[in-house]
């Protein structure tokens, strides 16, 4: 994955529920803004469908597929882009691709690319040709997305019992034993090479795709 799908069963329930609540709140916020701006949900539907087609094709045995979330952000804008990311993540989760209970968190991590993309692209477009601006935006977006996943995994390792049971060391010891510990060093060693390779492949692919689209429909990137 050029972004990391967190599977079911890795994160504590509190994180799962919080992720869902935050995502639903942001969806209402985005939908409200889309309605007020009179934005096209027809474009939302077809761009999301296009993302799904591209994302459902894994490349060989490595856990990697293209995602085009940054390109979606550039074409749709932040609000519609956020909704598109949720639609794609949800439908993929229904197919067993990425955890269904962690749809909220997976949406938030992937949306890091989509929400950032329009702003970064507008800045880069002033200095670089459009296909290069899109490719660099994609590379930065994937890095942000990866950092968000790492942050969530790291944050989920913080055991609230350490704060709640001060003065009751035996209770803390029992609770710490019962909570699974992820070795962040091992996690980074396993995922960073895949994420880096995936990010590079995605950026090259997006560059070629943006080159093709810009040649035929330059107005798409305005």
């Amino acid at each position, binding site marked *: 994955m050029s972004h990391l799908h967190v599977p079911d*069963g890795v994160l504590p329930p509190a994180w799962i529920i919080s992720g869902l609540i935050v995502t639903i709140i942001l969806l209402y916020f985005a939908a409200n803004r889309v309605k007020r701006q009179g934005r096209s*949900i027809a474009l939302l539907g*077809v761009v999301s*469908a296009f993302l799904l087609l591209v994302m459902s094709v894994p490349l060989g045995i490595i*856990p990697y597929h293209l995602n085009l979330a940054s390109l979606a952000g550039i074409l749709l804008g932040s609000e519609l882009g956020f909704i598109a990311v949720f639609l794609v993540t949800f439908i993929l989760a229904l197919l*067993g*691709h*990425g955890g269904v209970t962690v749809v909220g968190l997976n949406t938030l991590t992937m949306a890091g690319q989509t929400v950032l993309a329009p702003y970064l692209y507008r800045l880069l477009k002033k200095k670089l040709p459009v296909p290069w601006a899109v490719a660099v935006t994609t590379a930065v977006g994937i890095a942000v997305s990866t950092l968000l996943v790492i942050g969530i995994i790291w944050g989920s390792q913080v055991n609230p019992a350490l704060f709640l049971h001060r003065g009751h060391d035996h209770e803390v010891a029992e609770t710490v034993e019962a909570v699974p510990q992820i070795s962040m060093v091992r996690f980074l060693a*396993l995922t960073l090479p895949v994420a880096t390779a995936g990010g590079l492949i995605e950026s090259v692919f997006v560059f070629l795709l943006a080159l093709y689209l810009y040649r035929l*429909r330059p107005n798409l990137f305005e």
Partner: protein
Amino acid sequence: MDLAYIDNLAYNGTGPLHRANAKSKAAFALVTLAGVIVNRHPLYLGLVSLGILGLSFLEGLPWRRFLSLALYPAFLALLFGLAFSQPEWRWIVLLRAMASSLTVLLFLATTPYIEIFYLLRRLLPPTVIDGLFLTYRSIFLLLEGLEKALLALRLKGADRDPRAIVSALGLTALRAVDMAGRLEKIMVLRGYEAGSFFLTSEQEWHREDYWLWGLSLILVVLTFLSFG
């Protein structure tokens, strides 16, 4: 594409679960998922996976194909599982990913997507529900075009050329944008308002619904007992 295959199963299946209404199936799936997420016993997780495969078999669904579809998220979960310090958690994470993936696949293969999206209308804004409907519909329209483009490349012997594949995808993207333009005009013409895609009535209850709720209750009890 798996989505088309599973969609076909949902609409054309005739097993008991196909007769149950979407709410009962959703409740069963949620209870199963909740149990899988909170449970740490590999035996419980393994039995849930086997139970779901068994239900798929009784339903006349392709349980072997489900198992192969569940292997991808299991492989992904292994990546996370290998990062755990306690070795037993690697198995737990793997089994959790498999059990939840199989549960969701069973739900999707026995419930038409319209009914699934309709269930979400109480939780999500109407714009998002309409977006789900339009996305799902558009996938099949775009897929047809993409398959033709890829077939054309294969006939020309260019299906391994990355630039040719990018062009095929680019062509699909442009089709998508044009399709959106036409769809937008049709929606305006028909007086579209958010939430107007779904005008369906509540489904009736059948004997299978009571079985599902009973099974859900048993799963809740088993989950609590496994904590004891």
